[in-house]
């Protein structure tokens, strides 16, 4: 078997960590990148660059621009398509043909199926490489349309948001809401505990992406903003 290509994963959250571990387990030479200097140094040798930034929109854009600049012409760029659409991500990279959006909410260890999404410019070859990479990591993939939050992100984020609004409205405490949802619906985790695990800032970023494209229905609850350490003024329009 030919040696597997080099994989670089940019980001700090559970999503980045989970993909890195899965790539190492699958026999890839994989390294974590924490800053722009590491991107400039490592991406030119990478066959696959995975962008899994923390929540901040501006830093995500900077990272995608830097990865796009350093990317080899035959490499694959996988962009986290939950806090921004695949079309936006692809445009930021300057290499839209090589860019495929993917959806992993929290740790990949907890997710059996990965959504893939193309930008208008993405090559078929890039899509095939993306499918092969996640198949190598033991995951099923599904092609989905480029809607904000994809399926996995919008569901987990909207559940957490409704749970947070319920707490804000004094319906029950956060712990009671989580307990009720696990016992009453068989959800694998309580929505607020799930948000904490994924990173509340990431949940807020997914909601803000939905809010930008779909409107007020996705306004993050004040409790989520508080949990994420954000002030409300930063999101009200």
């Amino acid at each position, binding site marked *: 078997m030919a040696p597997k290509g080099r994989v670089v994963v940019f980001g700090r959250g559970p999503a980045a960590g989970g993909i890195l571990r899965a790539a190492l387990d699958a026999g890839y030479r994989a390294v974590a990148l924490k800053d722009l200097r590491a991107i400039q140094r490592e991406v030119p040798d990478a066959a696959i660059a995975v962008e899994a930034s923390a929540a901040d929109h501006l830093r995500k854009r900077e990272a995608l621009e830097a990865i796009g600049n350093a990317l080899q012409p035959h490499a694959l760029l996988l962009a986290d398509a939950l806090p921004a659409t695949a079309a936006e991500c692809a445009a930021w990279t300057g290499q839209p043909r090589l860019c495929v959006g993917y959806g992993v909410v929290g740790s990949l260890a907890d997710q059996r199926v990965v959504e893939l999404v193309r930008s208008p410019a993405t090559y078929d070859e890039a899509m095939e490489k993306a499918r092969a990479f996640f198949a190598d990591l033991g995951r099923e993939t599904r092609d989905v349309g480029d809607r904000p939050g994809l399926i996995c992100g919008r569901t987990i984020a909207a559940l957490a948001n409704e749970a947070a609004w319920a707490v804000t409205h004094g319906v029950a405490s956060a712990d009671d809401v989580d307990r*009720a949802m696990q016992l009453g619906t068989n959800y694998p985790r309580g929505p607020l505990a799930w948000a904490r695990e994924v990173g509340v800032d990431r949940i807020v970023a997914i909601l803000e992406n939905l809010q930008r494209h779909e409107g007020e229905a996705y306004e993050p609850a004040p409790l989520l903003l508080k949990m994420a350490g954000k002030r409300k003024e930063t999101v009200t329009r």
Partner: protein
Amino acid sequence: MIGAGTMGAGIAASASAANYEVYLVELAAAARERAAAGLTKTLGRLLPDAAGAEAAFGRIRLVDSVAQATSGDIYIEAVPEVLDLKRTVFAELARLAPAGALLATNTSSLAVGEIARPTGRAQSVVGIHFFNPPAVMKLVEVVRAEQSSDESVRRAVEFVERLGKTPVVVRDTPGFVVNRVARPYYLEALRAIDAGAADAECVDAVLEGLGFKMGPCRLMDLIGLDVNLATTRSVYEATHVERLRPSPLQERMVAEGRLGRKSSRGFYDYGA
């Protein structure tokens, strides 16, 4: 227990299995017969020891009016979700139940405070919301209405705990916790499908891949799209927040009679 449908009979079985003496009030003779057969089955499952199940069955008296059950400590109403019907029951309870009795409604979609109004003793009224099937599901939402006394809530919590279930105290708001917080699970799937992002099978695969036992589309087919839509509507109409607005796709499917398994067709086909 007032009302011997699925919920009423199931709650009666749980209570008798926990050593309560139960009067199960049901007007319709046919429904009483059905309930008796159901009780035997449910108690057999709850209490594997045959003698224990038989004794529990003996603790339940099926009667046809509240007038035959005037010495209760706890009254639980589980008649259909129609406000006037429930109010009629509560007016009767106000006349016939002892002064210190706890009065509870098993509503899932109506305001407990509204149901309590005709009693003149709203401080004694709470919601005790069981989930279906009530003998199996561990969660019970204990609903504190604006006028419910702390003592009434405490008694309801204690009752639920004695049944071996987990009470969660919630405020009297549309959908309480579970029926409200679960809305996005269905709505986001419907919106994604309506936007053409994915089909039902894809949505279910992605969410089952995240650990949900059943994807939202398969689950709506099981529940019935009409029943699921009615829950969304009742929460939306009581709140009017955009987040909870019913999905036009679901409205269309219900209008076309695509209700899920019961109509052989919903998101999936189930043969004729």
